[in-house]
């Protein structure tokens, strides 16, 4: 509350603080709260719309049918299976690489210019637009190595490189959280560096590493732009059965469907696809949160 006496006005303003009325103060508080809620509420409204639109479209038939030009026949099965296959492959690639890189940076690397350079590089890779990773996949895996347009293996490698920085950063945080005293105790027992990492650091850091990796996989499952750039086909009728088979994924299928003009697609099939994608995403993230909570209680 600013002083309400005339004589003090000058000095109060000199101190850099204009007089603020109580009303303004309270109004500002509400303004900041409104700002904090506006994005969340907008998303909630949109999610409610899409959930209502998906009613009647999202059924067993939708989940088990291949895509079809007739909206009443269309289903998401190849894209759903494609997304899950992609996710498993991406996990296989990123988990060992990401954890390995994090162990190197946290346990082996000395604080030199090279380590700083690698750290800055990883932070920057996390900020590279996903469509550019798509071009990397197109130029490297498709054109140079010749693994074929839009194949499962190319898609997996491309998106794996995209989420690798996020996996490394979260694994580093988990490893950093292991108290140094535990390492010293292990060395004191005569353990080697590798024994210490294997028996002390990794078991303690594993919940955090898993949580971070699973959340990163959640990001991977929603990526569309890289898949478009590596030439993933707009429509796939079969479930992928080899690493070199053409792959579709849920976001790719949603993108394709969203361009169909019919209202049955715009406000029906696509809505069902969006809800399916979000439910899968939610399940993935719930697993991560369950792991985190489970181990937080233990400690």
């Amino acid at each position: 509350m600013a002083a309400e006496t005339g004589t003090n006005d000058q000095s109060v303003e000199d101190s850099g603080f204009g007089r603020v009325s109580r009303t303004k103060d309270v109004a500002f508080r509400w303004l900041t709260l409104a700002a904090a809620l506006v994005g969340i509420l907008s998303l909630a409204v949109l999610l409610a719309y899409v959930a209502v639109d998906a009613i009647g479209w999202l059924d067993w038939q939708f989940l088990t049918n291949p895509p079809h030009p007739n909206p009443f026949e269309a289903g998401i099965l190849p894209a759903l299976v494609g997304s899950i296959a992609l996710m498993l492959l991406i996990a296989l690639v990123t988990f060992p690489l990401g954890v390995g890189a994090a162990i190197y940076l946290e346990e082996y690397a000395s604080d030199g210019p090279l380590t700083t350079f690698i750290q800055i590089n990883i932070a920057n890779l996390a900020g590279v637009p996903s469509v550019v990773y798509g071009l990397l996949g197109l130029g490297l895996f498709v054109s140079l190595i010749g693994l074929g347009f839009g194949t499962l293996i190319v898609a997996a490698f491309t998106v794996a490189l995209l989420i690798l920085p996020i996996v490394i950063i979260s694994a580093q945080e988990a490893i950093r959280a292991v108290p140094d005293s535990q390492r010293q105790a292990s060395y004191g027992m005569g353990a080697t560096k590798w024994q210490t990492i294997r028996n002390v650091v990794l078991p303690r850091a594993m919940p955090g590493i898993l949580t971070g990796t699973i959340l990163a996989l959640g990001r991977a499952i929603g990526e569309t732009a890289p898949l478009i750039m590596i030439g993933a086909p707009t429509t796939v009728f079969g479930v992928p059965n080899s690493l070199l088979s053409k792959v579709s994924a849920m976001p790719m299928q949603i993108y394709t469907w969203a361009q169909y003009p019919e209202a049955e697609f715009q406000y029906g099939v696509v809505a069902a696809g969006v809800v399916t994608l979000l439910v899968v995403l939610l399940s993935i993230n719930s697993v991560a949160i369950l792991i985190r909570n489970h181990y937080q209680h233990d400690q």
Partner: protein
Amino acid sequence: MSAMDLSHDGNRTARGVFFKYLFTLCALVSILTTVAIVLTLLLDAVDFFAAVSPIDFLFGTRWSPTNEPVAFGVLPLITGTLTITFGAAAIALPIGLLTAIYLSEYASSRRRAYLKPALEVLAGVPTVVYGYFALVYVTPALDAIPFVELSTFNALSASIMVGIMIIPMVSSISEDAMSAVPDSLRQASYGLGATKFTVSTSVVVPAALSGIFSSFILALSRAIGETMIVAIAAGQTPKLIDLTDPAALFLESVQTMTAAMVQIGTNDVVGQSVAYKSLFAVGLTLFVITFVMNLVSEFIASRYREVYQ
């Protein structure tokens, strides 16, 4: 690092050496990724610039990669990207900053525990979903407003959605910067009779300015690189900004750099054609712009970390 290193020398056993090099290799993958990105973009972009002069590319005012007469002027795409980014910034920067002020200065710790993950959800929704929302819900809703004549594809709803998506980037980094401001500054202002409003706006925000700035740059870089929302909702009409008619700018379709890349990518362009190579030239332009912005943001952020930590 610990004060005393009691660890055995990693190089003493064969196994120790093996794992050390294995982990080093993993870390080198990240550097190789960067090298691969730069090389991939450069190799094809160099081919492209052999066919189209860099001057024509950078200053050309018409973009038509596949339809005759072909033209590869990137300016329309850059202005389209700027339009979307400007619109997203107009939404995300004030809202994100106010959100950060609420979280850092007003919210109880319990409420913060609920709000922060809820905000992170905004960044976690797949962008293809946002693009769909913009196309089928936001555009019709805005079109229903009297005197607003929206095209089916328009910059307005796309930039609103991009804005909502980048709110958490602005709010979380800004909040970190505000939380790092020492409490003594706040207490001193209260001692001078300041209200919470004054403390927030005249003390905390200026003190955290570099962190806030860095969050702005990072969020804008994310908006520039955003692909699916603009490809779905903003349409595929490359055109130069017409500054004489700013209102129409947002009501009509524009094409960003990323949307142009998606368009060429979905057109099944034959390998090794100029249009295919142009993908990499646009990609390189996008990469350079976002990379520089991320570096600048990182540089500013590192300065504020030094001040308060």
